[in-house]
Structure formats: C-alpha cells, structure tokens
C-alpha cells in the first residue's frame, strides 16, 4: 500500500462518515430553528423547540409507548430466539434444515406488505389493533434476525461443556447459570440490542398494527408529512439520543464481559 492509497482510503472513510451522519445532523439543526418550515440557513436560532418538547405530555407518552413495545419485543424475541437457536444448533431433528429457511423468510417480505397482512390477520381473528398487536407484528420481523445473531454465537459452542459441568457436580440449573448463559451472554446482549433498536425505530409495521396507539416513528412521520414544527425535530433528536445512549451502555456491558469474564475472579454465584 503506497502513501497515496492511504490518503484515498482516509478520504473515502471521511466521505462515508459525513454522508451517513450529515442527514442526522441536519435534523439536529432543524430542531434549533424557530420556523414552521425546514429551511437553511436559519434566521432565528432557538432552543424553544426543546423546552416545548420536554414540557409536552405527548413527548412522554410517545416515548413510553415505543419503549414498552420495544422492551417487550426485546425480552420475548431473545427468549424465543435462544430456544430456536439452541434447537437448531444443538439437536438434529426432522425439518431442521427447513426450519433454517422458514425462520428467515419474514425478512424477505416488504414490511408494508407484512404489516397489511398482519392487520388482516388480526381483524380476521377479531383482535382490535393496539400497541400489543404491534409487539406481535414487530416480533414476526425481529425474531428471525435475533435468531440469526444468537445462532452465530451458538455455533462455536461445545455442548460437551454442559456434560462436563454436570459431571463435575453441577445441577441443571447451575449448568444454565454457570456455563450456558455466561457463554451465550454476548450473543443475547447483541441480539437484544438489535431487537430493541429495530422495534424502536420501526415505522411500516407499526402504521398498520398499532391501531389507536401511536409510536414515536409513527408520530414523527405524520407530523413531518402534515403539521411540521421544530418540536418534531427536537423529539426526533431526543429519541435518537436515547437509542445512542442505549447502544453505548450495551457496548460497555459487552466490554466488561469480555475483560472481566475471562480474566477476572468472576464469582457470579
């Protein structure tokens, strides 16, 4: 690699970063304007949108709705995906390879189609769409992805470790707590992070399946389309910061597991 190529590489990287983050930055800038229309450059700078956003009860309700949907999706899909991934990675059963193909199928549907299909499905069964049906809808799409993420971790796993633990006196519960879960935890955490963020930011499925409830992305979308005010951008920024914060916390936890789990005294019991 010559010096010239190194520069080209650095410029390329810088371009990618700028192009990725500039749009997000522009939302941030828009939130600081005091106008009814998004336009640059600003005539009046103001943080009024943020004080508005923080004082509005709606901000809290939107975040709470999205949060409870995302948290439920995370917990349920991590549990189900772990069971599915274990069944797939560990045991040989009839239909195992069919399962591998079917399980990822929902990712290939365009989400609006999937959303409409689910709405029809819910009404056929007589369910009124609420945030709870949205949890189910999100899981249809999120579960395959989480299953894949956890499977990757499981493939490197030697099930004989569990036999060894049993042999050394561990009860079934101790095997799970001392061997299986500590090994799987990085996969569970990154799977959970995926689940949370995919649900947190999902629009196409929510639009069809939340009924009278409104999630953050739904509200943002409708307000951007019709009734824009800087407070919309302000709430978008707050929501983005919330998910960035979550991401940072998870990365920190993974770091801790990595260093502490192997080297440290690790007295988990």
């Amino acid at each position, binding site marked *: 690699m010559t010096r010239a190529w190194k520069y080209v590489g650095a410029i390329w990287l810088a371009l990618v970063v700028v192009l990725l983050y500039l749009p997000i930055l522009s939302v941030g800038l828009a939130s600081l304007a005091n106008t009814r229309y998004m336009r640059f450059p600003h005539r009046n700078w103001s943080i009024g949108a943020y004080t508005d956003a923080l004082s509005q009860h709606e901000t809290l309700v939107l975040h709470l709705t999205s949060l409870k949907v995302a948290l439920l999706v995370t917990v349920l899909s991590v549990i189900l995906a772990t069971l599915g991934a274990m069944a797939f990675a560990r045991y040989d059963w009839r239909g195992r390879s069919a399962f591998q193909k079917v399980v990822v199928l929902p990712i290939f549907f365009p989400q609006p189609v999937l959303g409409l299909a689910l709405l029809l499905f819910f009404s056929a069964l007589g369910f009124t769409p609420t945030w709870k049906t949205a949890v189910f809808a999100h899981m249809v799409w999120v579960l395959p992805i989480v299953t894949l993420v956890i499977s990757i971790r499981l493939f490197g796993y*030697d099930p*004989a*470790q569990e*036999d*060894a*633990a*049993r*042999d*050394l*006196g*561990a*009860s079934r519960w*101790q095997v799970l707590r*001392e*061997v299986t879960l*500590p*090994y799987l935890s990085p996969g569970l955490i990154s799977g959970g992070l995926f689940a949370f963020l995919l649900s947190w930011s999902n629009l196409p499925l929510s639009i069809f399946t939340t009924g009278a409830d409104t999630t953050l992305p739904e509200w943002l979308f409708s307000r951007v389309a019709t009734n824009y005010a800087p407070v919309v951008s302000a709430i978008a920024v707050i929501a983005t910061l919330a998910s960035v914060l979550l991401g940072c916390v998870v990365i920190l936890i993974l770091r801790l597991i990595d260093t502490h*789990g*192997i*080297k440290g*005294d*690790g*007295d988990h*019991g």
Partner: protein
Amino acid sequence: MTRTAEPAQRQTALSLIGLSRHFGTFKALDSISLEIEEGEFFTIVGPSGSGKTTMLRILAGLDQPTQGSLLLRGTDITRMPANQRPTAMVFQSLALFDHRSVGENVEFALKMRGMPKPERREQAFELLDLVHLGRDYYNRAVTQCSGGERQRVALARALASDPEILFFDEPLSALDYRLRKTLEVELRELQRRTGRTFVYITHSLEEAMVMSDRIGIMREGKLVQIGTPAEIYGQPKDRFVARFMGEVNIFEVSDHRLVDFEASVSTVKDGFLIVRPEMLHPVDAEDPGLHFEATIAEVFRLGSRVQLHLETVAGLLVSEQPASCQLKPNDAVRFGFDPDQTHSVPE
C-alpha cells in the same frame, strides 16, 4: 511395577452387568459385562463407532443404558445422575469452559460444592502443581493455553472433585506424537501415585499397551476380549483382535495343512496361525520349523528396529528385526517361523 495390593485382594470398583444401549434398532452397546478393579488402569480399545464413548458416557451417568445395571463398589448407581456420581471425566474435546480462567476451570467442582473462594484457590494451586502447570497459570485464559496445557487443565479440573474413578475419552488424540508420549507416561505415573481407578478409551493400540493394567477390546458394541496387554498381544482371541493389535501375518490352517505353504502343522487342525513380525526371521538350515524363500521388497527403518516386507509364496509378509539387520531390497533370503510355537485362533 510394584503394587501394594495383590490382585486377589483387590476389590471391584465398577461392575457392568449386561449393559446395553440401543438407538432405535442400532445396538451401540450390546450386553456388556465387565468388572473393573479398584486402582486399576483399564483401557477400552476399539475402532471408531465400536461403542467406546457410549459406554463411557453411561459409566459417567451422562447417558442411560437401555438394559442392564451398573454397580459402584456393589451399590447400584444405574439411575444416579452424573452430578451425584463420585466420578469425573476428561472429555475428548476437553470441554474446557472457555469463558473462564484456568483457575476457575480447575475449581469448578469445588465451587459447585459451595466451597469458599480462598480454599478453592488454595486447592486449585495444589492441583496446578500436581499436573505440572504451576500456580502462575491460575489467572490465565484457557483460550491462551497450548494443546498440552489445556490437556493438563482438563486433568486438574477432573481431579479437583476428588473422584473415585476417572474416565478418559481419547483425550490425547489431538496432540502431536512427542507430547502424547510424555503425557501417557505422566498419566500412568499419576495413576500409580494416587492409586485411583482410571478407565481410559483410545483407538490407539500403542497408547493402550503403554499405560494399561488390562485392556478390553471392543467391536460393534461388544467386548471381544479382556486381558493384560501381553495376553492380548500374544494370545488374541480372533483375527480381528490380532490385526487390531498391530502388524501381523495370518496363515490359514485346514485339516492340519498350512494352506499357503503346502506344509503340515501338528498342533492345529483348523483355524489360523497368528505370526507376529518379530517371530518371522531369517533362518539357517538346522533351525526348527517352517522355512521358505523370501525376497525383500521394502525396508523401513523404525529407529530401534527394522521392518521388512517380504515377497513369498504366501504373498506379502511383514517381519521385524533388530536395527542391526543389514538386509537390503531385492536380497533373496530364507525366512521361517516355528508353527508349533505359534498362537492360533479358530476364526
């Protein structure tokens, strides 16, 4: 080889009574009966798929027999779960806990018993010394250990539970030759020093010969023969065992006639003569036994001895001679053996 107890005084550590394990119609274990004595190094040898590992897993409680029972010093433990048995196993994959340090691996069994951390650490130190790793390894990650070191960690971890019986499932198969040899000797030494019962599985005859008090040969879920290494080598029960225990020349005998040589045998009517390579040697006219013309096809120097491949009327035969042997390819020599001194098998 000094032993404190005479064989007659030894107690039975493990009794296997008609143990079978069926997977559908496949009989992985077919009515195995065996008594393993206290303080014995017992090795089960067999080709892959012969049921060795299935048997060991049943002994350790990791699998349940379809039929039969298992006694530990006379107490039935057939249905006792693995975590309650006073046995420990070294696995083929070693099955070390990769997310734990060497020390945490070693003290796992102690932690499961609720022993406090300082005591556990003290015992782990002792065990690490015992397996020649040393306490410096305590904080090391198992993923940073070499193959031989991982082996020792696995051994220390199994010893930590102070088991009455230790099981080994081909633990050395992934190591290079030199390391394997070293560890074979160390294991044997450890077994003598601790006086524990070791049940060892391998497909390597050499490993079995070096370490064992007794060897059991397995084939298709059955124990074909049980005996000391010398017995199994010198008096195999059939051609399968003879072939499995190393290089061998086998000659068919039919109605007192050695078929390949058109010669007669007084001691055997029908069956097969088992002629080990070292029993086949160059002869003078006055030597007793059967003589025949041989042309040297190949010469392999094996260090302390020489292996010769001979072209004869009976086809290609194998002979082994001391390293001083000067025969070269294409030499024509008279070779022979004494059929009356040769072990024979009916099938």
